[in-house]
């Protein structure tokens, strides 16, 4: 795995030492899937880091231009495979904009409920994986997966699949909630704070966790804004920007919740922000489950097959668990999009990995990568 190579420019930067070049990945356990980091080390210090991706490239955007509008929906599940429902929502929102459809109120509430449940899944998985990267092998991750399992059961009884849900449709949702679903969801939401309390007791005060994360991988607010970072990473650097508050898409305008923000932008803030966001998500879930109205779940104008939006373009964006998830679709009036483009939050958040890792140790690079929260299905598409 390790190769000795002379890297004249980087060596000069390191004061003439010979550098050790380490290729971490693409099958390294700390790299979250098939991701590779070319790291040049001076002793233990990172002097250069080059992220290499594309190992999981599946031609998603080209397939989307070949498929019908509906046919792309199940493929969006496979972008960020941990949060398939928010991907569905982003794509449905864009095509609704393009075709002039509007989801009924009940469908909007169901979408908010599912999106917030997805956020719980994503953030608890992230916290588990981050701790796994720090060497807490198994325990935190398994606790997080145990809670995720309960939410996946909810998804399965509603959509038929645990991960590849394929649930949202242009102008609403595919099917209505089965009987007893709301009660089961309320039970899960009511039990979740106990898990968060335990998880925090387990980790937040832990001296080793704090020593490994505090002051590590600091991302300044200015750099974060300039690099186009979105989502929890941006808010951990102290920038108040949440598309749920900015755009108020869906029924988020009616929900009462706060946007947690960090101060220093280090790895500990990025971990903490996720825990605090989960608590806010639980608040949103309680309100949405309480206010869920009756009525239809699909726009009567919506067509399942042969959707041919008028020629034009639309950009739809949502606050995905990882950041701003945008879809850009151009229609030429045909049955499939002329151009179909995705703004993946994982990829764009990954671009500043080098800036955060430089000057730190190789062990810190692993922790910083864990706190960025990437899923390679979305990075490579």
């Amino acid at each position, binding site marked *: 795995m390790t190769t000795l190579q002379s890297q004249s420019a980087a060596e000069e930067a390191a004061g003439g030492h010979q550098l050790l070049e380490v290729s971490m990945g693409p099958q390294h356990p700390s790299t979250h899937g098939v991701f590779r980091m070319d790291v040049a080390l001076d002793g233990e210090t990172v002097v250069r880091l080059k992220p290499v991706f594309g190992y999981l490239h599946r031609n998603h955007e080209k397939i989307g231009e070949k498929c019908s509008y509906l046919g792309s929906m199940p*493929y969006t599940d496979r972008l960020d495979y941990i949060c398939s429902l928010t991907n569905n929502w982003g794509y449905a929102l864009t095509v609704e904009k393009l075709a002039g459809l509007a989801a009924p109120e009940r469908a909007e509430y169901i979408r908010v409920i599912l999106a917030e449940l997805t956020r719980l899944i994503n953030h608890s998985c992230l916290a588990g994986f981050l701790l796994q990267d720090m060497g807490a092998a198994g325990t935190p991750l398994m606790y997080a997966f145990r809670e995720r399992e309960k939410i996946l059961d909810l998804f399965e009884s509603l959509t038929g*699949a645990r991960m590849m849900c*394929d649930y949202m449709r242009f102008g609403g949702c595919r099917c209505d909630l*089965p009987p007893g679903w709301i009660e089961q969801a309320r039970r899960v939401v009511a039990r979740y704070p106990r898990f968060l309390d335990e998880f925090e007791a387990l980790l937040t005060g832990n001296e080793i966790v704090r020593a490994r994360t505090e002051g590590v991988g600091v991302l300044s607010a200015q750099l974060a804004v300039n690099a186009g970072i979105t989502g929890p990473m941006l808010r951990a650097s102290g920038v108040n920007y949440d598309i749920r508050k900015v755009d108020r898409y869906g029924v988020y305008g009616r929900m009462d919740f706060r946007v947690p923000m960090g101060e220093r932008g280090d790895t500990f803030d990025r971990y903490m922000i996720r825990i605090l966001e989960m608590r806010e998500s639980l608040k949103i879930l309680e309100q949405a489950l309480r206010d869920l109205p009756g009525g239809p779940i699909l726009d009567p104008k919506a067509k399942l097959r042969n959707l041919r939006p008028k020629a034009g373009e639309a950009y739809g964006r949502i606050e995905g668990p990882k950041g701003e998830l945008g879809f850009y679709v151009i229609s030429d009036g045909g049955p499939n999009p002329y151009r179909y483009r995705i703004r993946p939050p994982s990829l764009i958040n990954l671009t500043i990995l080098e800036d955060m890792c430089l000057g730190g140790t190789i062990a810190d690079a692993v922790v910083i990568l864990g706190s960025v929260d990437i899923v390679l299905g979305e990075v490579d598409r």
Partner: protein
Amino acid sequence: MNGVGIIKGLIETARNLAGSYHDKERLTTVRYPEETLPPVENARTIPFLVYDGGDAAAGLRCTACTICEKECPPQCIYIVKDMAKKPDYLGKMQLHPKVFDIDISVCMSCGICVEVCPFDAIKMDQVFELSTDDRFGGLLWGIKQLAKPNDYFQKLHRTEASEIDARREEDKSKSQAAAAAKAAGPAPAAKPPPSANKGAAA
């Protein structure tokens, strides 16, 4: 930095370990090959073809309209029409598939074929132990493997299947009534005189 946080964390793991023996919330797994959880009603894996009655060849609901073949995102369905028409449950003459293959290694279980099917002919199965050592024939399923009786569909998706059966029963009685009326002679409502038609429009 005095280790209190670590000790607190260890108490938490001890509580989870002890809790997993009596609290169902803390132990959510089952030992898979020995135990399996019953699938939920909405669960879906790969499609199957529904047939009515006891004979798969005669009662297949599929009319080889190829809508699912066109809509399938990964293009895993392959249909060849049988040009000899057969009457369906309403007595209408319909085509039937001569070949209906699904490559289950390509199918991604999205369920779009089920949504677009206007004949309620293709539905989602819940089998999941599909591994085989024959990677060509074993993964390309034809009518023989895909056709399952309506009773099986009733067993998997009870709510949906009952709705469909009720609707089909209603359609059938309607079409029988229409056929009986037709057989009895030209019905007055079917061919109204021009004057009556005008009156209705006004």
